[in-house]
């Protein structure tokens, strides 16, 4: 691991003092191409996007359009073929402890218990803590996601939602300043999903809303409820940003109430129109 946790640079401090916005993520003209048997394949093309410190941004788009790929360039799991990504002002060259990652498919190690899955990540990232500090941290994080009673179970014994919570706890435990969540609530039922939304916002609030969160989702309601901005992507290949939608709803937002907010409905319709434009009846007919 090359990147270290570093205090925000001097430049960031000065900007903050001057009341200027500080970008925690800067994506600059990023193109990602994969080598495939059929030749070069551009997954995303020339994407630029800034995410401010403390902002919650959702990325939404049809499956296969390159959302995970874009997330992976921020996390450092995938190298852009062109362009660059800055995280906290530093060029991303690989994964780093300043960015916590929740994979789309949980990626838990099946032979480790819930506790061990989190512990190994903590042990590996937070080298400065001693053993008992690490243990306490893991336990606290498990309690936070209501998994403490299940700490000795193996991932194979958990439901999809529980696995997702373990993956989230693992990312949270290392207390990164940037959280990257790839469809983190996709496998959850509506009730669990709602309570996880609240948990996520609670954590974000606890931290003075300092954490930057980028989240991939399919769920329009979820995106509006959680985000400050929503990035809508075009369909791939060579996907780009189609639009960025602001969500100026005042926080704290209440699930039951915001759905009646005219602003909410406007954004909802706008997003729906953008994602569904291919599915008009005329299109379906012409396909038959």
């Amino acid at each position, binding site marked *: *691991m090359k990147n270290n946790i570093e205090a925000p640079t001097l430049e960031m401090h000065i900007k903050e003092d001057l009341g200027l916005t500080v970008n925690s993520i800067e994506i600059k003209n990023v193109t990602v191409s994969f080598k495939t048997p059929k030749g070069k394949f551009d997954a995303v093309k020339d994407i630029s996007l800034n995410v401010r410190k403390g902002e919650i941004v959702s990325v939404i788009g049809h499956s296969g359009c390159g959302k995970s790929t874009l997330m992976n360039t921020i*996390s450092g*799991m995938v190298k852009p073929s062109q362009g660059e990504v800055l995280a906290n002002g530093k060029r991303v060259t*690989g*994964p*780093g*402890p300043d960015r916590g*990652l929740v*994979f789309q*498919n949980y*990626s*838990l*190690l*099946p*032979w*480790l218990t819930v506790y061990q899955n989190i512990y*190994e*990540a903590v*042990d*590996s*990232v937070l080298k400065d803590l001693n053993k008992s500090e690490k243990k306490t941290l893991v336990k606290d994080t498990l309690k936070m996601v209501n998994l403490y009673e299940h700490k000795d179970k*193996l991932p*194979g*014994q958990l439901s999809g939602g529980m696995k997702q919570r373990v993956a989230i706890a*693992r990312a949270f435990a*290392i207390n990164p300043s940037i959280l990257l969540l790839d469809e983190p609530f996709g496998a959850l039922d509506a009730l669990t999903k709602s309570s996880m939304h609240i948990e996520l916002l609670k954590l974000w609030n606890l931290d003075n809303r300092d954490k930057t969160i980028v989240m991939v989702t399919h769920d329009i309601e979820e995106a509006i409820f959680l985000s400050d901005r929503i990035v809508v992507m075009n369909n791939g290949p060579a996907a780009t940003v189609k639009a960025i939608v602001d969500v100026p709803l005042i926080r704290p937002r209440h699930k039951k109430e915001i759905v009646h907010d005219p602003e909410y409905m406007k954004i909802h319709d706008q997003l729906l129109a953008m994602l569904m434009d291919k599915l008009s009846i005329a299109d379906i007919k012409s396909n038959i």
Partner: protein
Amino acid sequence: MKNIQSNILAIVYFLCGIGALLLFWEMSSRFTDGELPGPVPTWEVFSELLKDPFYDFGPNDKGVGLLLWGSLVRVTYGFLLGTLVAVPFGILLGSSKIAMNILNPVVQILKPVSPLAWFPIGLAIFQSAPSATVFIIFITSLWPTLINTAFGVSTVPQDHKNVAKAFGFSKFKYVVKILFPYSLPHIFTGLRLSIGVAWLVIVAGEMLSGGMGIGFFIWDSWNAGSMEKIIGGILIIGIVGLLLDKGFSVLQKSFSYEK
């Protein structure tokens, strides 16, 4: 309740199978006019052997238990040596493309050779039949373990590697927490196959080397003209082979994880 029921059922099926075998055996015996001894006379000779299985009246007259024990000891030595070589090489092959490219052709050429063909080489090297027998078991045990270990190591899923990358696992942590746990079930599959083939080969090896082991027992019984003893020996070999396989299957299960 379900479990007990299915266990009882399994026992019933087992007894049916044994019953069918005994019936077939008895019929074959009658068909050949007793040239092939039936279950009853075999049992008479065989139970006599089992009364004192560990007697030792010199090099060419030992109890069947003692001979069996000798075979097991040789298989164990050969198998352990083979494992000690095959697992590290398997890891090397599985984790390095270059090593794979260099060693794979060698493995491919040597693997199909009957282990018995190595017997003269073993004799030449060690100048002793028992050591040469251990040597062929060593060779036998190499291939399945090597190949399965290499397969396990080379197929660690990208998901697991991503965890290591994302959280910056050290090389050591990667090996201990990801590579080994993932490969272990594959390694044990290799070991189980190896012990199976080793037990097949030991009998043939001892028939070749003479003077020792359960293989010699069979050959000696043939020279003594006792079909009853030969069939008894076959049953012993079968049962021991089954127990070895069951033992390794238990090991294999205990080192597997739930998916």
